[in-house]
């Protein structure tokens, strides 16, 4: 996740210092186009489908939220 963000967005001079709960939008790291890039990467990398109704801060605002969201999606798929 951090590698994807560091490759595609400017994380500052010390990418490693980005905390897991920092808002990627409010920090100016990603914008609405960045959200779409992130969704595309999550879908391709983890084989999940992100619904329009899931485009919410609670799922995508921070690294921690994204990790939790992907884990939920993958476990829901595994249980199906």
């Amino acid at each position: 996740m951090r590698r994807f963000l560091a490759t595609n967005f400017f994380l500052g001079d010390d990418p490693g210092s980005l905390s897991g709960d920092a808002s990627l939008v409010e920090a100016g790291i990603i914008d609405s186009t960045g959200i779409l890039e992130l969704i595309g990467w999550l879908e391709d990398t983890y084989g999940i489908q992100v619904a329009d109704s899931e485009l919410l801060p609670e799922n995508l605002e921070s690294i921690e939220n994204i990790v939790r969201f992907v884990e939920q999606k993958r476990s829901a798929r595994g249980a199906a």
Partner: protein
Amino acid sequence: MAVGARLTPDVLELDPAAATDRIVAELRTIVGKTLRRRGAVLGISGGIDSSVTCALCARAFGPERVLGVLAPETDSETETLRLSHVVVSTFGVPYVVENITPILAAARCYERRDETVRELVPAFTSGWKLKVVLPDVVGNDLYRVLFLVVESPDGRQERHRLTAEQSLAIVAATNFKQRTRKMIEYYHADRLNYAVAGTPNRLEYDQGFFVKNGDGAADVKPIAHLYKTQVYRLAEYLGVPEEIRVRPPTTDTYSLPQSQEEFFFSLPYQKLDLCLYAHNHGLRAEAVADAVELSVADVERVFRDIEQKRRTTRSLHMSSRLVEPVAEIDLSDA
């Protein structure tokens, strides 16, 4: 205004005569003394902003030293050209009609856009219409990513979420329209030794609702400091015809009718003006909620959207950056 105070719409009241006098005086100074030009060229869309800017330029330089550029293209609404004629006729301003469709076709504006649309809608061809839209801000926290809406010739509509690449490709292709219009405006400005007057109001300028080097390019922007509500007040004072003053703002960029709220802004301008004013003056959401008939949570969403747009569009305001200053080029008097 005190931080704890309740906002009322009258905070946007202005004295239209005084505002007009000030803008006209500044226009004469900026164009005549600073830019050393002898008149103004501006694009006329038949909308409120270009109508008011046209009237102000006519007062500043005399109608004969203003040129209106009417530049419709194939996706323009039919009303655009008629209302644009009403504007130049009302203020006695000379004008040219420049249909930019052939230039856009030669640049493959429509073809590039449609190639991207067909990735999602293979059947999309001539006879279909399209627009791009954003989710509402009010009532939800959904990220404001672009969706494509297409309508088949038999009136059936489809809505698709765009990928990042598709979103960028469609906007990049349609940006040819604003940039082509500006190219034509500068052609006429160059040949007449005029300045180009831009037409953004404060909402558009602050929130970055313009195309860089397109409608965002101009030598002077006479109404960029005015909230849209104030532009309407000025329009009434300056004699902009009522049919233009009552027309809902539109982007007039895509073939399906598209409001400015669908494409960019979060609220109708009357409410967004008040939210922006409140946010600019450090007022809390509670102070403005009643005036705009929204919940406190929704006003907070609008405040966040205002900040997000400022962050996203900051680079649109920047001129070319230099690695080192070139001290001999002094713009301190500009």
